[in-house]
């Protein structure tokens, strides 16, 4: 285990030795490789080295077993997956598919992913979703892989891919331009490697070692505290007492007059998917395995890689800074939750109905939607059992409703 961990640290060092700055982005990309069928996205403006970083990591993990397709070049419809073997068709009348190198390679690179034509991106989407590809009515399974993609969000000649496509990427890291000092370092580096940064990158791990490391990380068990924090973080970004997900009216119009208008939820137009939870869990496991531990601050930092491509904010000035501000509010919210001791209250309420605790719970619920949701589910049960009258419940008093429930149930 230690040997494998050292190799991953070496990989990070080798990449860092050829890529100046953006250390957090490199670390995030390394962490994301520690689970099966990893898919990472690098976003940066032109010339910031997104393709170089992608190639460095692919080479470090897969050596020569890598194929890069580029949205900037002409990728024909379906060609990325496989093509028909014409001689077989002509001579024997058999449709034989020759699966493309991209399908078979362990390392898969997607350069300028937002310039891939919709047919190619649909093929790649299917591959990421089901681990298989289709061509000419035939399918083939794709084994475990390393997929890295990059794009320039400001590129004018792009296709707008659907949100579910981006949701398939575990993380999305942004690269920033080099500082004055770092520019000198880059010049030294180019001189040292004679401009052959990618070519000089060694394969640090064998594919078997990568598989073994992924298995080890996957078998780790996270503490209930970490899992609780991850689930709370994601739920805070998803929850809406007015059921934003099913509403045709979206924030800010939906939030008019809402009790929770000052909460994090009012800043979110489209919430992140449930996949955020599993990706954050993967990253938490990877941090534990590679860095030795995972803290709440570490999870907040990882959220900056997991959330940007999965959600839409009401007002965006600078996406990363805006999400950062929301994560700061999350930190304050956690302190408030601790000071209200609301989880201790919920713990007792799950064990049984206690009027005095229920009153405290109602006060906590008026400050926290996630807690309110849990309390409202308990209230439903207590109303059915006759312990609480419908009109006493916080859901009736505040006019809140759980998604999918019918108010008549309380009658």
């Amino acid at each position: 285990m230690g040997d494998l961990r050292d190799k991953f640290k070496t990989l990070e060092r080798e990449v860092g030795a050829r890529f100046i700055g953006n250390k957090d982005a490199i670390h995030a990309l390394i962490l994301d490789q520690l689970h099966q069928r990893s898919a990472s996205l690098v976003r940066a403006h032109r010339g910031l080295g997104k393709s170089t970083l992608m190639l460095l990591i692919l080479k470090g993990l897969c050596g020569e077993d890598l194929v890069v397709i580029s949205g900037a070049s002409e990728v024909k419809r379906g060609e990325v997956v496989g093509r028909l073997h014409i001689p077989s068709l002509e001579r024997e009348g058999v449709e034989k598919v020759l699966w493309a190198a991209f399908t078979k390679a362990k390392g898969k690179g997607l350069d300028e992913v937002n310039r891939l034509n919709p047919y190619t991106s649909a093929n790649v989407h299917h591959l990421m979703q089901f681990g298989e590809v289709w061509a000419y009515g035939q399918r083939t399974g794709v084994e475990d892989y390393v997929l890295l993609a990059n794009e320039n969000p400001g590129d004018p000649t792009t296709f707008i891919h659907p949100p579910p496509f981006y949701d398939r990427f575990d993380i999305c890291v942004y690269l920033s331009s080099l500082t004055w000092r770092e520019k000198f370092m880059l010049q030294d580096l180019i001189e040292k490697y004679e401009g052959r940064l990618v070519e000089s990158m060694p394969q640090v791990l064998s594919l078997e070692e990568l598989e073994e490391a992924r298995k080890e990380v996957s078998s780790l068990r996270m503490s209930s505290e970490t899992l609780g924090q991850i689930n709370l973080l994601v739920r805070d970004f998803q929850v809406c007492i007015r059921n934003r997900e099913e509403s045709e009216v979206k924030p800010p119009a939906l939030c008019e007059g809402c009790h929770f208008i000052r909460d994090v939820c009012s800043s979110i137009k489209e919430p992140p998917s449930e996949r955020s939870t599993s990706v954050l869990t993967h990253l938490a496991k990877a941090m534990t395995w590679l860095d030795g531990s995972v803290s709440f601050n570490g999870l907040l930092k990882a959220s900056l890689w997991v959330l940007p491509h999965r959600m839409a904010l009401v007002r965006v000035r600078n996406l990363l800074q805006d999400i950062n501000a929301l994560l700061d509010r999350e930190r304050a919210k956690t302190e408030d939750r601790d000071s209200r001791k609301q989880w201790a209250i919920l713990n007792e309420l799950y064990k049984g109905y206690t009027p005095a605790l229920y009153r405290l719970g109602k006060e906590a619920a008026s400050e926290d939607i996630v807690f309110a949701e849990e309390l409202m589910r308990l209230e439903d049960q207590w109303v059915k059992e006759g312990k609480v009258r419908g009109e006493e419940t916080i859901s009736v008093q505040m006019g809140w409703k759980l998604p999918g429930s019918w108010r008549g149930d309380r009658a």
Partner: protein
Amino acid sequence: MVDVANEFLLSTQLKEFLEYEAKKNPIKGDGNKFSWDEKGVQSDRVSTGGSGLLDAIYLKKPTEGTVVVEKSVAALIQERISNLEEEITRMRSRVRFFKIAILIFFVATMMLVGEVFALLRGG
């Protein structure tokens, strides 16, 4: 329909999380009376906790003699009042629009009735 709501199925991890948090931040209570705060160890943050005014507004609790309002609660109420005022302004402009529309409709109807009478007399 099978009623599965009678018993909450809590995952082991959730139970462990709640137990862990309950140990970390225990509540004080004797079965009938519980409190969030531990006497003598109140931090500034904790001492500015719940507000009687919010309870009175949202939970319909009777207010006591004096209600102390912390800054954040006052800001929240201010925000809600300004939202309601905006709503009132919007509603007023709608009412004005409808009044004018009704007036125009009334005048048009009267003119039409006048025309009909004039036609009948002329005929």
